């Protein structure tokens, strides 16, 4: 089984690697790049804890092969903070208590970032639809929605 040479932009840094065909993107992110902010939750593409932005779109990285990300721009939760300044979405989760156990948080925040980039002023319904593929088992959705609304206000 041949290895594949891949090259991708991860949070602004070019990364090169040799990967097996079957290596999942989430394992590449966590184990090869050691970026453990991206979580593995259900591993069955239901929960969204592993959400990352692939060419700007939120996807479940447990259901993408690393080799499929060849040539792509990948953004993980580690790429949100800039120059020591938390991203407005991170500030929102902080200010509005958008997390309890924190497990779903990285995926929620990546989905929220993509939403706000596409639609800077979403309604509550649009926020709830956007995060409908991200599960919070603490069921803290009310504060997650408030956190995203806070970030949208900041963006204004």
């Amino acid at each position, binding site marked *: 089984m041949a290895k*594949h040479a891949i090259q991708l932009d991860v949070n602004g840094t070019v990364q090169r690697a040799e990967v097996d065909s079957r290596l999942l993107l989430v394992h590449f992110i966590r184990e090869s790049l050691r970026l453990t902010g991206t979580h593995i939750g259900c591993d069955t*593409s239901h929960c969204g804890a592993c959400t990352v932005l692939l060419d700007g779109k939120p996807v479940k990285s447990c259901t993408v*092969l690393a080799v499929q990300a060849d040539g792509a721009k990948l953004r993980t939760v580690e790429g949100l903070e800039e120059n020591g300044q938390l991203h407005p979405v991170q500030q929102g989760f902080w200010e509005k208590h958008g997390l309890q156990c924190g497990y779903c948080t990285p995926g929620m925040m990546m989905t929220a970032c993509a939403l706000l980039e596409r639609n800077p002023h979403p309604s509550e319904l649009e926020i709830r639809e956007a995060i*409908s*593929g991200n599960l919070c088992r603490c069921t803290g959705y009310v504060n997650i929605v408030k956190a995203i609304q806070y970030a949208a206000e900041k963006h204004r």
Partner: protein
Amino acid sequence: MIPAAFDYHCPKTLGEAVTLLVQYGDAAKVMSGGQSLLPLLKLRLASPEHVIDIGKIPGLAYLREEGNVLKIGGCTSEAELEASDLIRTRYPLLHDTTRVIADPLVRNRATVGGNLAHGDPANDHPATMIALRAQIVATGPRGERVIPATQFFRSLFTTALAADEILTEIRIPMPPPRSGGAYVKLERKVGDYATAAAAAQVSLTPAGAIELVGLALTNAGPTPIHASAAEQHLTGKTPTAAVIAEAAKLAASATQPSADRRGDVDYKREMARVHAARALQRAIERAGGR
């Protein structure tokens, strides 16, 4: 969960992809967005030796009306379908359907062609395409052939595609004036397969009678259920509440649901009846009828 080892191939052209399929035959699986295939590989319900990724072949993702036909490229993502103004305004049945497939994250990678070629009766597009009388284009070593959606789904996870063919396009006849469609799905939560779902497409005569109708049901048997007896009952009639109720009953009696965590057989058949009626009602409203 880690898939069994396989060799990944990323052809740059459709011709290259077909050549690989001819070479590897049954040992290969075609992957488009991977949102159905990768979960299967991870659960090791399938372990092909070769995975042929058609997702990076340029020119397989598009939505356009040409002549009297809407053409959807096989690798068009559900997210593209959902965001399209053309689809939202002129093909409400497709718009309804794409919005209830899996969840928004999955829809960023999932493709319309993959949803059909997978052959899963629980997928949502098969019923939609039967109701719309879509034609499915398969490309293989002998060129293209066109398969009506009504003949595409053969048995559980089996379609009319040959081992060396790739689903490259879906062609949908442009609906005449006074047409409408709707997809109505009962699901336990976002991302779940349907407990019951129905796709309806109708065209009305100027007097308000049903001129053309397509009706099909999701996850109600080993293949999507084409409710042809219900269609025959509706054709030519004014869609009164009694006519719709009788059609929904006929549709439900064509189902062969199996019991699972979503419900027992009787419940699912009853939900199929209720949702067939709702889909018909909404389609007729959208067509400008009552």
